[in-house]
């Protein structure tokens, strides 16, 4: 029988992320660990190297604005239809953070290579792009399997972050977590050395032995810490639980246009309350 795993607080999870850590985080989709991001900001973590897999949104803009990030690697940071990411934009324009521009499938491929324990992976496309020109850690070789020689192809190195984290729908007492169709979270957990998870609800049973839930479950084998944090993804969405708070995001984008406005947002939202409203 599997051993039970102890629950932690969100502050304890945040404390496991040291200055200078290399993180890889999924995009702001269902199940973004915003409460954990808030705890990290309160803890004052610094000099993070963060890979967004493959793009960033609120999570990136908050960490950048709060001065936690030294280097960001991603294919884009924005709020989609709702607007541009003001702290990201200013930080790149001023040179306050270093950016390693990428393209979505190259990041996915690099994390999958990390999951598979291989040092690199080929990927189609990208040739001719300045994304490639500026990435001296990517290489171009001739496809060794091309019949007549030639056929240049891009190789990207594997990504094996120190830590990944996310907010999941359920966690059970054995430390397993259910992420449903968000398969890329499992890939990240496999590629990362440590995986921290906040969970919306506790699941009374073993997620690994439920015939239907197991397909969307990440085994505790990969999980180094779990905190029970209801509403842990707010103001973003968690499928099946709550929708994104569009007004909150629009207000954020407006307020975070200035350093002062962003500071006021943090004061109110991150420092004023233990958990985001």
């Amino acid at each position: 029988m599997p051993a039970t795993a102890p629950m932690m607080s969100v502050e304890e999870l945040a404390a496991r992320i040291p200055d200078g850590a290399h993180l890889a985080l999924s995009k702001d989709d269902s199940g973004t660990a915003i409460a954990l991001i808030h705890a990290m900001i309160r803890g004052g973590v610094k000099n993070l190297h963060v890979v967004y897999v493959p793009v960033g949104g609120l999570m990136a803009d908050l960490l950048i604005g709060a001065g936690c990030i030294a280097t960001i690697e991603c294919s884009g940071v924005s709020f989609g239809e709702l607007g541009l990411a003001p702290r990201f934009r200013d930080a790149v324009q001023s040179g306050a953070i270093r950016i390693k521009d990428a393209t979505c499938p190259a990041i996915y491929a690099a994390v999958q290579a990390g999951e598979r324990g291989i040092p690199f992976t080929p990927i189609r496309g990208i040739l001719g792009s300045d994304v490639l020109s500026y990435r001296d850690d990517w290489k171009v070789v001739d496809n060794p399997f091309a019949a007549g020689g030639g056929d240049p192809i891009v190789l990207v190195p594997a990504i094996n972050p120190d830590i990944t984290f996310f907010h999941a729908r359920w966690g059970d007492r054995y430390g397993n977590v259910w992420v449903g169709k968000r398969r890329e979270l499992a890939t990240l957990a496999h590629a990362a050395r440590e995986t921290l998870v906040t969970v919306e609800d506790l699941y009374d049973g073993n997620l690994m032995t439920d015939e239907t839930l197991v397909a969307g479950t990440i085994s505790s084998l990969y999980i180094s810490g779990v905190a029970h944090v209801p509403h842990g993804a707010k103001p973003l969405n968690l499928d099946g639980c709550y929708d994104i708070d569009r007004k909150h995001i629009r207000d954020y984008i407006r307020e975070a246009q200035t350093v002062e406005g962003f500071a006021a947002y943090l004061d109110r939202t991150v420092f004023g309350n233990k958990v985001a409203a």
Partner: protein
Amino acid sequence: MAFSREEQLICVIARMLEGQRNISVGTNSPIPAAAALLMERLTDGWARPLLLGSSRHYPANDGGVEFHDRAAQGRVDVFFLGGGQIDGEGNINLVGIGAYPKMKVRLPGSFGSAFLYLTVPRVILFREEHSARVLVPKVDFISAAGWSPPGVFRRGGPYALITSMAVFFYDKDRHRFRLDYVHAGNSVDDVRANTGFDFDLASPVRETPPPEPDRLALIRGEIAAELAHLYPKFAAEKLGYTAAAANV
């Protein structure tokens, strides 16, 4: 029947989707999404829209990974790209204006463009703003290259460029755009005055046909309602969809 610019553009795009089955649309693209949903409706589901970011119109369950894998497999027939800058060779720039990396204006980033432009057979460039600021002689940063030298694996690339003023088709052999349609109210000279790159002219350059009335009715009805799940603001403000959700 009177129509808006958005409705016009939806119908222009829809005509380029005839006979195309797997139509994928990126995030933050309500007009291409509306055109894809329109084609699904007109073909009784034969055409399959795959709207990134939608939970209703995303018949895949492995997030962005599966979408890019599909493109790599040759299972995506059409995709849409835009650009902060687009140049006369079809190169697009989604990264910023000025010298990289500390750019004068930083845009969100290249997203999947560097990959999808080479793996998807038909890429439709869509950018409403038609100005010499956007349509430049040479982009400041090539997010994705409009063409590739011989020997580079490439399934397709730019097919057409649609703006609020005109429709250009792309000549893959010459790596140049050709002006084919000018939307009502604009002239070839207007287009030339607002385009920073050199382009060819179709003979003749024609006026863009107006929306087909039956399609217009669908757009304002079923399509707007469907679109509102993903783009509530657009559906409400641009297509007059009134039953929008409270959380807009």
